[in-house]
């Protein structure tokens, strides 16, 4: 049991790291892109551009949020 817990914690720390928000918004963005792609809402090119723009926006907002918390 202790080994399983340590194993799980190792992978959580390795993949999620010290900011869980990054993994969360990457998954949310990919889910959004999957919805667009599966339903053929946009062309492939437009879909990946939207996905990139959303990821970059999430990243900028996430870092800004962390910075504001650090300044408090």
């Amino acid at each position, binding site marked *: 049991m202790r080994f399983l817990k340590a194993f799980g914690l190792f992978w959580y720390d390795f993949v999620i790291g010290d900011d869980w928000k990054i993994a969360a918004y*990457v998954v949310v963005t*990919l889910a959004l892109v999957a919805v667009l792609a599966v339903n053929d809402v946009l062309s492939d090119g437009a*879909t*990946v551009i939207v996905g990139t723009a959303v990821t970059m926006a999430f990243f900028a907002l996430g870092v800004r949020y962390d*910075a504001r918390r650090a*300044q408090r």
Partner: protein
Amino acid sequence: MDGTTAALVSAVFFASFVEFVEAFTIVLAMGVTRGWRSAITGTVAALIALTAFTAVLGVAISTWLSESLLQLTIGTLLLIFGLQWLRKACLRASGLKALHDEDAEFAEQTEAAREADRTTYAGIDLFGFMVSFKGVFLEGVEVVFIVVTFGLSADALGMAVAGAVVAGVIVIALGVALRKPLSRIPENTLKYGVGVMLASFGTYWALEGVGYFRDGEESLHWPGGKVALIVLVAGWFAVTRLVIAGLGRSRTSAPTEAAA
């Protein structure tokens, strides 16, 4: 070697280089305080474990995953790793997080090693062995992920492995020659550059791989094909510069988060 492979090998080389520098600091600290026998044994044991891990990971993901699922899995991991590196780089550049300092890390490790009790097994100091093993293995796992994922996605595993091996040889050679932490290497700048590369390749492959959910599991196509990678590198660089500029303007007297 085409442009994409050259960029890939460079990213693997620099990512491996900074991870090896960090691992070297830990092994050096154990070597000078707990003895070289335990530090080197721990390092060799970690390298054997990493070799086995690389073989299992490489075979598993190349055998079980379809092309689009491989791109999605690998791209998502690289994107998450890349954004973690970039987040730290932005916070460091704006003074909200302490810069990573190998001299400080070495001092911290040697102090902890001097205070720890000595327990030996077959002539090997267990503290020195375990700390060296953990340091090399944990830093090495990230290198393995980057090598395997970059190598398989670009169908250039040999080149990716070569990039990491050359980085390891250079770090060991520098370490043996200087016999002190490699603190003069611009580690924070290298980490920023690697973060941009990981985020760019990760974005490219993760979004391409989303096609896995469509009928036929066909990957999505980027406008311009691989040329889009250059635009992504420029895009991530521009976004991080804007974020850093924005943080610099809004910063007052913020407490500095410890380096990691």
